[in-house]
């Protein structure tokens, strides 16, 4: 059987030129897909190694507090996004009001794998850049079974002027470990996604740490100058700094 023109693969990361076994995939291509799906599934269901992450954050000079959402386990987290956006009662007591300029929330989201791999190395790039614009980021809060909007409840409890939520994005087959960052001015529980700015796909093979950290510092500076985040801030940014998906496609729950 003639082989397909593998030359197409130079132009795209999509699964092109896979060949054919009748109308089906050849065995190797079939098992490649199965493997990628297994990695993505494992990322969704992996538990965050809190002690390991906390140690990495302490090495960066942060002293993390650990909190949890009201979603008691992964199943509940997946079917009840509303509970993933609310703080459990015990956690509220752990958050002392300290009125910080920029609270940091590190949440497992849909990929603990992404947070484990990329949160600390990204912050190592971001913290010095924020310090250069006189923003002492912190405190750091590790949030379990958390959705993006959990940062609003945490930020409000801390009295934070703004909150940056680092969270594991929905895993795809090509990238089970994409880290997302959502920046929200004046966080409180009624905020919508249109009031946030997003930096997505933070990982070495996607948006590298240093580049994402530059973007964050720029956004934080503009946010503090204009005292807002969201669509109004997005409009003046370069095209490379993407906001939450606003295409014609139906939305997915965050």
């Amino acid at each position, binding site marked *: 059987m003639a082989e397909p023109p593998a030359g197409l693969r130079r132009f795209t990361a999509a699964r092109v030129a896979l060949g054919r076994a009748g109308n089906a995939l050849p065995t190797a291509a079939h098992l490649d897909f199965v493997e990628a799906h297994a990695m993505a599934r494992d990322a969704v269901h992996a538990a965050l190694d809190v002690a390991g992450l906390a140690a990495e954050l302490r090495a960066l000079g942060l002293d993390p507090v650990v909190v949890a959402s009201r979603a008691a386990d992964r199943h509940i987290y997946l079917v009840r996004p509303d509970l993933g956006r609310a703080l459990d009662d015990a956690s509220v007591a752990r958050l002392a009001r300290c009125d910080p300029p920029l609270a940091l929330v590190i949440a497992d989201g849909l990929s603990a794998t992404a947070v484990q791999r990329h949160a600390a190395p990204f912050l190592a790039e971001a913290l010095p850049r924020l310090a250069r614009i006189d923003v002492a980021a912190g405190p750091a809060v590790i949030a379990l079974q958390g959705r993006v909007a959990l940062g609003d409840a945490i930020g409000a409890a801390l009295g934070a002027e703004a909150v940056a939520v680092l969270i594991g994005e929905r*895993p795809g087959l090509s*990238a089970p470990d994409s880290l997302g960052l959502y920046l929200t001015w004046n966080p409180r529980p009624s905020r919508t996604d249109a009031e946030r700015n997003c930096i997505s796909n933070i990982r070495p093979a996607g948006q590298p740490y240093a580049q994402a950290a530059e973007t964050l510092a720029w956004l934080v500076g503009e946010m503090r100058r204009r005292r807002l985040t969201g669509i109004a801030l997005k409009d003046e940014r370069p095209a490379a700094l*993407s906001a939450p998906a606003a295409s014609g496609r139906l939305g997915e729950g965050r």
Partner: protein
Amino acid sequence: MAFAHTVGGTRYVFPDLRTLLARASPFRSGDALAGIAALPEAERVAAQRALADLPLRHFLAEAVVAYEDDDVTRLILDGHDATAFAPVASMTVGQFRDWLLSDAATAQALAALRPGLTPEMVAAVSKIMRIADLIAVAAKCRVVTRFRNTLGLPGTLSVRLQPNDPADDPRGVAASTLDGLLLGAGDAVIGVNPATDNVETTIRLLELLDTIRGRYAIPTQTCVLAHVTTTLAAIARGAPVDLVFQSIGGTEAVNRSFGVSLALLAEAREAALALKRGTLGDNVMYFETGQGSALSADAHHGVDQQTLEARAYAVARAFQPLLVNSVVGFIGPEYLYDGKQIMRAGLEDHFCGKLLGLPMGVDVCYTNHAEADQDDMDALLTLLGVAGVTYVMGVPGADDVMLNYQSTSFHDALAVRAALGKSPAPEFAGWLERMGIGTEATFPPALSPALIGLG
């Protein structure tokens, strides 16, 4: 108006039509999330029995979303055709189910009935049907649409070629497009979801797709699935727009959350018609829908997600679309949790769309946080093929590298066509033959990548 039925010694009462419909719906996570699902199971069957006894006429007297509050309700009730409704006007929902399954419900009878059916009637009857029933009735429906080819003819199954690229790189889009054409995909549309929704990107991709279509003389249509306002801006700047795409939902509020109105959709359709680019017909709209979109936008009014999905089809049919598809497993497990829920929802959506007269396709798909895998997709794709689905998606290797979800592949579409003896749209089938595209896995000279600069 309240409804009631006794099951197992317990009398279950349903205060209004929307509650009755919600409790009668087969279980899915989104209705539980909204707090409107039946509990216990006996309540569901009580609701189904009460629903089966309900006269179809009642749906013209009680709206699930208030007429004054919602332009989709007004569209549905103001557009109802009493003459077309007459043959079933005296039936209950249960009698309507039996009639749909009977030999009396021929393709002609079903087509004549369409303007007399409301989406709520169609959703209601689907709730008391099994998967086999949904397949049997949908398979009798004939819906044919045309732009540069003919979609929906008996014995055909078409494919949307979906060559998405995470950076909207034209070479990436072109490479995936050629891969799909070589595998017989693209007769429904060659349609790209842009990663960045702006006019410049949209125009660049529209010009690329039009160049590819022209260079190989492909009898199909192209589309960049940007927001309708972006497409209108592209039309104003002279871009080659075949079809106008938009996501839509079943309430005025969800459509507002998508940034659209009925008037805006009408304006977009007029703009596309004015370009006169269709050679065989003037179906110029392409809509996507999906169960759960209204709840995720907090725009559901306490109505169950499957009924709202059917109401989205009432919006679609007002604009004579070329293509409509549910993105059934895309919206996430909080709406459709697993392969079983996705499978039933996909067949419900196809049934409801077809009964209302839409050229219904399905994006047979799932995300990695749903309890589903490619086996579930194979099963749903095969069932939809038997049900006569108008088209499905073709994504390279079933892995959409931009939207991060899994759909059906070019290979999957070939397999289901072969298993069920289906062909592409006739004009496209003729083109495949002329080009020498068949089972060989190498490019024929006429489809050389070099012809579009991919050397």
